[in-house]
């Protein structure tokens, strides 16, 4: 094969692949701007004849979408802030503070990763029920406040901090909290950004546990609200596409803005392991 042909083939395949990957997203956006029932026609229309925001208006004014959006922001934001703090502290301790049994403890945490999270869900529901936390924001937030993956990621990164730096600060009489806040955290900033995006996306997209613990619509996050709307309004294609846009757009924009950090973290978490 001539090099020219190979070049055309490689780029043609990439273009085709990218088209398949992005098409459902563009189609969702396009149909969300159609008038009700416009998409249910043959041949299937790809673009709205007159673009309208009516579906979005219906969602926000009558279907409670604004409420679900706020719930999602509140829940995902709290999970991100809290789990970032706890994972940073623990990851730093495993990487830089010496104590008996450190390595064994860390290894058993990694070992626990083989247990799928769903095994814990039934008793967790009973536990939270006994605390009166079923159908509350806390019911979603509390179990997500720490992840073994997050601790692992921070530890890998924090191992690169030179011990001399910390020892010098200790000799100068600095307290441990001061060292953590003033010396360690600034050095961990890149991994903080990565972990924050990761955690936020995971929390935003999470479905099974919120579905279990949120029994009433009041605290529904966007995926739950959308799934329940989809069961009620199965025929309203255009409305459902608008709902999907509202659910997906925030995380997609966040990813596009910060993708460098996100993809770096993905490689750090996998390859160095």
């Amino acid at each position, binding site marked *: 094969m001539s090099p020219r042909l190979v070049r055309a083939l490689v780029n043609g395949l*990439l273009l085709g692949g990218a088209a398949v990957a992005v098409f459902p997203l563009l189609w969702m956006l396009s149909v969300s701007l159609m008038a009700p029932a416009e998409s249910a026609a043959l041949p299937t229309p790809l673009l709205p004849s007159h673009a309208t925001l009516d579906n979005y208006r219906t969602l926000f004014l009558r279907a409670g979408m604004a409420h679900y959006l706020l719930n999602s922001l509140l829940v995902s934001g709290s999970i991100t802030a809290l789990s970032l703090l706890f994972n940073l502290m623990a990851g730093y301790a495993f990487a830089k*503070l010496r104590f008996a049994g450190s390595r064994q403890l860390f290894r058993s945490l990694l070992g626990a990763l083989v*247990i*799928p999270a769903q095994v814990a869900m039934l008793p967790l*529901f009973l536990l939270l029920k006994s605390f009166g936390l079923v159908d509350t924001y806390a019911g979603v937030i509390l179990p997500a406040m720490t992840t073994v993956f997050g601790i692992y990621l921070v530890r890998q990164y924090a191992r690169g901090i030179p011990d001399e730096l910390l020892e010098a600060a200790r000799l100068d009489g600095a307290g441990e909290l001061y060292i953590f806040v003033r010396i360690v955290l600034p050095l961990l900033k890149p991994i903080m950004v990565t972990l924050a995006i990761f955690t936020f996306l995971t929390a935003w997209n999470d*479905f*099974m546990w919120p579905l279990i613990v949120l029994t009433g619509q009041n605290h529904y996050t966007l995926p739950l609200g959308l*799934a329940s709307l989809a069961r009620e309004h199965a025929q309203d294609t255009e409305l*459902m596409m608008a709902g999907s846009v509202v659910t997906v757009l925030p995380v997609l924009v966040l*990813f596009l803005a910060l993708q460098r950090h996100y993809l770096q973290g993905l490689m750090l978490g996998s390859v160095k392991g």
Partner: protein
Amino acid sequence: MNPTRTAWLFLAPALTVLGVFFLLPVIAALGLSFTDYDLYALADVRNLRFVALANYWSLLQRPLFWAALGHTVYFVAVGVPLSMATSLGAALLLNSPLARWHGFFRTALFAPVVTTVVAMAVVWRYLFNSKYGVINTVLGHFGIHPVDWLGDPHWAMPTIILFAVWKNFGYNMIIFLAGLQAIPPALYEAARIDGASSWRQFRHITLPMLRPTLVMVAVLTVSGYFQLFAEPYVMTEGGPLQSTMSVLYLMYDEGFEWWNFGSASTVAFLLFLVMFAVTSTMLRLVRRGDET
């Protein structure tokens, strides 16, 4: 302050959360699976009885459990190789020196990964609609008759597999890309001087160098795919004719529709055992392959 105490203070919040909200429930789940915990026990815990292995025994005799396990294994056995092949193919294309607009293609191919499963499953339902769906319209141009993708028990699971591949391949693509970039270019140069074809370079340099990454990705993807739930919940509600009922869907149904926590915990534990057996067998086979 002594160093050990400092360390434990820094670890305390994380370990407390993991202990109370994960470790403790996992142990409790094992306990629950030996009881008949149900709606009556939920109302008054004095109705709770210890039943030893009765849940396991009756579950292993229930056709629905085997059906759910069969569907899940089908999803894993077809979905994982298809996902990984797509990821590897995309990574090889992206890594090719001939590829242009590198950043754009990478972003476009990765985009499905960050989307919300539930939202995209809703979109997929309409794309694969038997009457007005885009997919059937396109196939119609090639003279293919409309397929009832999500309404036909034979097609529902393949449609869900296609969705999962579309949604997930970008993740492993990035990991493979990192693995490919770590292979020293000198190896390829030497092979080229020896006159090795691209296929032989792939077979004798790329695949062996990528082997540790392939193994890790395979194990992680298998465990991930065993946890199938949101896709059938949104796209098919486990139907048609329960053809997309997965093990986790069965656990959810038993637990949170029928409040049979005892037998639902048993389902969860059996899934864990199956996952553990499959992934550890995979690792053992790889290790045996390394020795010979």
